[in-house]
């Protein structure tokens, strides 16, 4: 589907087991540079496992994972992160006892915050500025999600892996988050985004891969999937054709 040099992240026939359970059965996936690739699928399809396998949090039993042409399967998680890959897990991974500032500081290099980056991120999420010195555990669910995204992008990253960022958020928070993700998209940040909310996926995504039972069962253009009601029904049990 995509030209090789256009692809930043490629998974080829990746198998992952958790204990004695086989979760991924040969996932093949490509995330193109500067584009937002949506990873969709029902609960238990293997989306989160795919992201965790890319990050090295769970090791692939077989298959190849290449980031910018370099194999990263088998590398330690910190080394993968240091290549410029940021991960926002579904549970957000906020350190509740640390302040908002400290949470953000952890994601920066030894030199600390770069002012331009920090200003840019706080402009997206002004609530974080107001809670700068507060314990992150005291934030609302939406604010924690903002902090998780802000922390992921407070330094320039080459690839963002984001797992269900809108889950459990109020519509206002979802809008704010979508706006930030669209801004990131405008900056040509490469994003692989797991999302259950199809409308959000449609608003943000350029490309799409749909998972079912540990495999990619469809990949292509997000807008095309949005316009094909039958395909949505078939893949996701949805009926959300563009214009409906």
């Amino acid at each position: 589907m995509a030209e090789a040099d256009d692809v930043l992240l490629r998974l080829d026939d990746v198998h992952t087991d958790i204990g004695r359970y086989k979760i991924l059965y040969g996932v093949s996936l490509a995330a193109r540079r500067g584009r937002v690739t949506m990873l969709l699928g029902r609960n238990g399809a293997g989306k989160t496992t795919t992201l965790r396998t890319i990050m090295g949090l769970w090791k692939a039993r077989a298959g190849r994972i290449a980031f910018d042409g370099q194999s990263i399967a088998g590398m330690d998680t910190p080394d993968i992160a240091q290549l410029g890959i940021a991960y926002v897990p579904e549970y957000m991974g906020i350190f509740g006892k640390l302040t908002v500032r400290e949470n953000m500081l952890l994601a920066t290099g030894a030199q600390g915050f770069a002012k331009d980056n920090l200003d840019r991120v706080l402009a997206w999420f002004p609530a974080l500025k107001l809670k700068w010195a507060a314990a992150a555990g005291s934030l609302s669910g939406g604010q924690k999600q903002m902090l998780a995204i802000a922390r992921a992008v407070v330094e320039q990253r080459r690839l963002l892996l984001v797992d269900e960022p809108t889950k459990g958020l109020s519509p206002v928070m979802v809008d704010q988050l979508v706006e930030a993700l669209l801004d990131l998209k405008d900056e040509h940040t490469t994003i692989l985004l797991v999302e259950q909310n199809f409308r959000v996926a449609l608003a943000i995504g350029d490309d799409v891969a749909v998972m079912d039972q540990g495999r990619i069962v469809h990949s292509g253009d997000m807008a095309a999937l949005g316009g094909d009601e039958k395909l949505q029904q078939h893949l996701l049990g949805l009926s959300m054709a563009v214009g409906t």
Partner: protein
Amino acid sequence: MRREWLDRLQRWAPYAVTPLIVLAALPAMGLTAWVTLTVAGLTMGMMLFLVASGLTLIFGLMEVLNFAHAAFVTVGAFVTVSVLGPLVGWTTEPSLPLNLLALLLALIAAAAASGALGFVFERVIIRQVYGAPLRQILITIGALTVIEQLVIVIWGPEAIALPKPATLRGSVFLGASPIETYRLVALFVGLAVAAAMQLILTRTRIGLVVRAGVEDREMVQSLGYHIRRVFVGVFVAGTALAGMGGMMWAQYQTLVSSQIGDSMLILVFIIVIIGGLGSVGGCFIGAILVGLTSNYVGFLAPTLALGSNILLMALVLLWRPRGLFPIGEQ
């Protein structure tokens, strides 16, 4: 509004436990004994904190249950014997600077020896049993026995007398209450170490990584930090602190045997559990609570002294099952 008030009460109540116990003890024993025992309790708490703080960080960061922690206390105590032996001229001289200098050298040597042993221990033994709690318990209890036997091989099976330095033997009076001079030194050392730890944990990048790692190890790794490398440093620091605790405790007891670490181990585990596993602040307050309870109950009801801290732990856990300051509570 009422709920908010209750939440606030719930959050701050653990901080009130220690002052409440201190105040409750006053009418039961009279001012003179109360001052003496409170200082004694705080001192004991500081010495226990030195040992327990390392253990709680080691558990908090990597979930390693290190029963061999007591061995590092023992090593620190015996290294103190070896250092102060040749310096007997300094410790028997009635000169405060010379006495303190001898203690400082012993403190540094105890920390260095236990820390170095801790480094080897982590590389050779602990790294083999990450994520395997049952194996950790078995191998660290085994290691405790082996190290204690090695101590006997090196320093002999007999307990060794370790008299306090000349100027730290007597007491000073706070009003009518006698306070052992050595206790004031131990109190100062404990507070200085606690302050240094607090500074490192809250003002440095490595401290930030450690605090974050105690909460969520996986996320720290996802941010690009090699948590195992950090853990080696924490393990070495934790064992060095245990060595310092061993030095202070040995000098306080004035008698050093190969069981000196074991005698602290139960109290140290009680402190770590009361404070909340992985919480250094909780460990500090837990150590003070245990020190005060031991001294107050030992004075008021000596027959209950042995079980008083276990009772304290049971009461705390009935109230807050994850300890007073649990990590991860948001």
